[in-house]
């Protein structure tokens, strides 16, 4: 019965129906996209809907349509084929829901950057306006889905993807300044997407450590209309400046106006934390978790905030929920199990706590670094808190053994937790060593030094502590300065080697890492392009971005690195679409080919 027609079929169908009915005017379609040749995946647990959607797609001309009736089935299909379009229902009965399918597909990179993921739900979903969800689908559709609405939305997403293609790519490559500039280029040409482009631009500027410029963008948007994300964006910048009270007011305004804009809750909680109001922060996180009950990270945040407050029942509820909803989620993490183990420990249920620690190691041991170490720290804490000093000490000794066997250390927060425990159980020498490591890697962070000094004070080792801190700082500063000297005197090969060694000793020292990249860039500028060195520098920057996201110097170095890459040969059609090649660097970050520019940069260097 159905006439297989080309995309934009409404026009033909309307025309053919003329003899039986008067004309229904057809809206003009800007451009035709070839939907027929694409590969589709339909995910719905209801066979009637799958058939309906398949028919709709067929009338767009589609030939390659796969179907899945559950999240698990969808995952195995996504594993095998890179689909162009995925239509996925949010409610899929038992097992993974649509959001979990999306998250796993994105994390495991089973979707192409050009793939369109459409989330279908029965009613207007809260998730669709939450705004800050890390893994957003490209479009939300509310049932009933009809052919026309589907086609309109698919066309729109496709066009949007074209406009954002280069921006998204720069974003994925963490070349945030470049992404922001690409936004500017697109803004000039796209009236409809201006607001969305400005939003992206502000986000990129924030990530580049340029809050003042991001603020300008938000204000520009707010002058046109009251967008809650722009208001919340301003609040975030206020908060970064330490103006917690003003920030709090902004976030609260956003929440009153739009109760589902969940990002504002997270920010509001941070503002409260910044003011030392931890009870209020936890209360806000609890409301956010209620609004978005199926988000694992949100429950985890709540659990950890509650644990810090000593609110055991609230922490238990949150962590238990974490485990339940995490069952089918790629976003579950060891922290959920460790958190619940702490809760069990606090309730004097050591047996369950140890069971959870075993589970955590079985579940995450292969993919998470320091899993054994972390489980052991938690075990020690649990024994210590329950007054079992013998077992606590045994854990301390075992930790010392682990640390001696492997020179790698976890991040600062875990190190601090570990050192505190080691002192508490009397493994003092190793505690001092761990803290020295922390200081070496944060030698210019005075807040952290005060915190570390306090740990020494509590362990009744104030003077030893002060000496350890002093010598750790000096060691880091010396390592760095020697690199600067080599760099300034033009001994670039030596400087590169030196910084590589410095990184080994100070793997998490952000300033050392930045300098190491800077030295590599100078080397390439002097001696010509070196792909291996560039890759090494990128790896270092990636590590920095994990340690401390949103650093201005990160964005600038990323941009310098991009500008080092050999330019494509043909000057005419360098970048895909004949746009001007990305060789127009911002004045501030212009790579300096000659040593003459060094003084200007060296201010930031050391």
């Amino acid at each position, binding site marked *: *019965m159905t006439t297989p027609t080309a995309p934009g079929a409404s026009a033909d169908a*309307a025309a053919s129906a003329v003899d039986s009915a008067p004309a229904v005017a057809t809206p003009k379609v*800007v451009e035709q996209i070839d939907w027929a040749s694409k590969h589709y995946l339909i995910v719905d647990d209801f066979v009637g809907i799958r058939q309906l959607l398949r028919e709709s797609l067929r009338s767009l001309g589609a030939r390659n349509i796969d179907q899945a009736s559950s999240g698990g089935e969808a995952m195995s299909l996504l594993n095998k084929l890179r689909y162009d379009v995925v239509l996925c229902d949010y409610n899929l009965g038992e097992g993974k829901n649509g959001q979990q399918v999306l998250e796993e597909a994105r994390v495991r990179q089973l979707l192409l950057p050009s793939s369109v993921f459409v989330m279908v739900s029965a*009613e207007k979903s809260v998730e669709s306006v939450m705004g800050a969800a890390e893994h957003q689908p490209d479009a939300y559709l509310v*049932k*009933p*889905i*009809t052919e026309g609405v589907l086609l309109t939305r698919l066309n729109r997403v496709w066009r949007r993807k074209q406009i954002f293609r280069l921006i998204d790519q720069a974003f994925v490559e963490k070349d945030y300044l470049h992404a922001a500039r690409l936004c500017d280029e697109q803004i000039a040409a796209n009236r409809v997407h201006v607001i969305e482009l400005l939003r992206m631009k502000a986000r990129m500027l924030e990530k580049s450590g340029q809050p003042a410029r991001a603020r300008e963008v938000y204000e520009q948007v707010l002058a046109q209309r009251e967008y809650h994300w722009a208001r919340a964006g301003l609040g975030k910048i206020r908060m970064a400046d330490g103006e917690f009270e003003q920030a709090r007011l902004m976030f609260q305004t956003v929440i009153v106006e739009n109760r589902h804009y969940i990002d504002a809750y997270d920010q509001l909680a941070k503002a409260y934390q910044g003011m030392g109001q931890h009870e209020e922060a936890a209360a806000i996180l609890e409301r956010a978790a209620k609004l978005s009950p199926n988000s694992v990270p949100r429950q985890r945040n709540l659990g950890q905030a509650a644990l810090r407050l000593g609110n055991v029942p609230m922490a238990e509820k949150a962590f238990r929920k974490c485990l339940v909803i995490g069952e089918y989620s790629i976003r579950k993490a060891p922290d959920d199990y460790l958190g619940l183990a702490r809760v069990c420990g606090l309730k004097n249920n050591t047996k369950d706590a140890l069971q959870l620690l075993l589970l955590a190691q079985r579940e995450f041991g292969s993919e998470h670094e320091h899993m054994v170490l972390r489980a052991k720290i938690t075990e020690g804490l649990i024994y210590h808190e329950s007054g079992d000093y013998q077992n606590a000490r045994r854990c301390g000794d075992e930790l010392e053994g682990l640390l001696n066997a492997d020179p790698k250390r976890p991040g600062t927060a875990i190190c601090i937790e570990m050192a505190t425990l080691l002192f508490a159980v009397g493994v003092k020498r190793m505690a001092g060593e761990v803290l020295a490591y922390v200081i070496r890697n944060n030698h210019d962070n005075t807040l952290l030094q005060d915190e570390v000094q306090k740990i020494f004070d509590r362990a009744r080792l104030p003077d030893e502590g002060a000496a350890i801190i002093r010598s750790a700082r000096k060691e880091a500063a010396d390592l760095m300065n020697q690199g600067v000297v080599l760099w300034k005197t033009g001994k670039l090969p030596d400087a590169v080697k030196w910084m590589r060694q410095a990184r080994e000793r100070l793997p998490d020292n952000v300033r050392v890492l930045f300098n190491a990249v800077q030295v590599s860039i100078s080397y390439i500028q002097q001696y010509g392009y070196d792909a291996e060195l560039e890759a090494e520098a990128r790896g270092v920057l990636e590590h920095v971005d994990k340690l401390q996201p949103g650093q201005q110097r990160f964005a600038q170095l990323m941009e310098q690195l991009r500008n080092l890459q050999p330019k494509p040969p043909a000057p005419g059609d360098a970048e895909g679409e004949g746009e001007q090649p990305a060789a127009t660097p911002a004045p501030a970050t212009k790579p300096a080919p000659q040593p003459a520019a060094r003084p200007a940069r060296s201010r930031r260097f050391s």
Partner: protein
Amino acid sequence: MEESRQSPELSLFLASTAHDMKNSISVLSGTLERLLDGATPETEKAYAQMAQMLYQTRRLNDNLMQLLALYKQVGKAGYPFDLQPLEVGQVVEQVVALARVLLESRGIALELDYDPEQIVHADEDLIVGVVSHAVNNALHYTRDRIRLAVRDTGGDLEIRVEDNGEGFPPALLAAGAPASSASGVNFLTNSAGLGLYFSGEVARMHRHRERTGAVRLENGGTLGGGCFILTLP
């Protein structure tokens, strides 16, 4: 702070039931559209009845959607309202696609008058729902033409759905008048009321600075019948 007053179990139950009902209605209306689209009154002797079935299915769907949205507190801060800039062309495209088969099956012509590149700030699902409902309503009362027109009235955007039928009865006109929207018609007893009430709530959610969206009904207009007029700031 104010949390939803309904019990979570009821909400969950309602959501899953609604989900189920929407699936059924989707299949029903999708199948009917497909059958009608491939047939003519000459080839299919139940053509007129099928057209009537499709119309009723759509009414069912509109009502269900409106009830659900109202249950989820359309018009209140709690509703997941999603204001975004849209091209008028895309809104019209969706409304037309939703109505096309139904219009053709009843032999009703649709005229369009709009600038596709005009930008409107709206919650897309709600606005498409409201305008489609107005078209479905006009479809029942018009003689043979409906006109969908969108224009900028100096800051506000005006969306008109006009027909060449008898026009709205006085009671409904009074209810649709901006000043008296709260009085007059009892929505519990007037079947036409739900859609109008819903549309009004949706319009009111669209605010910009001091201006607020509104719905009104008139008789006359370009085609001389009923006019449903939605303005958005």
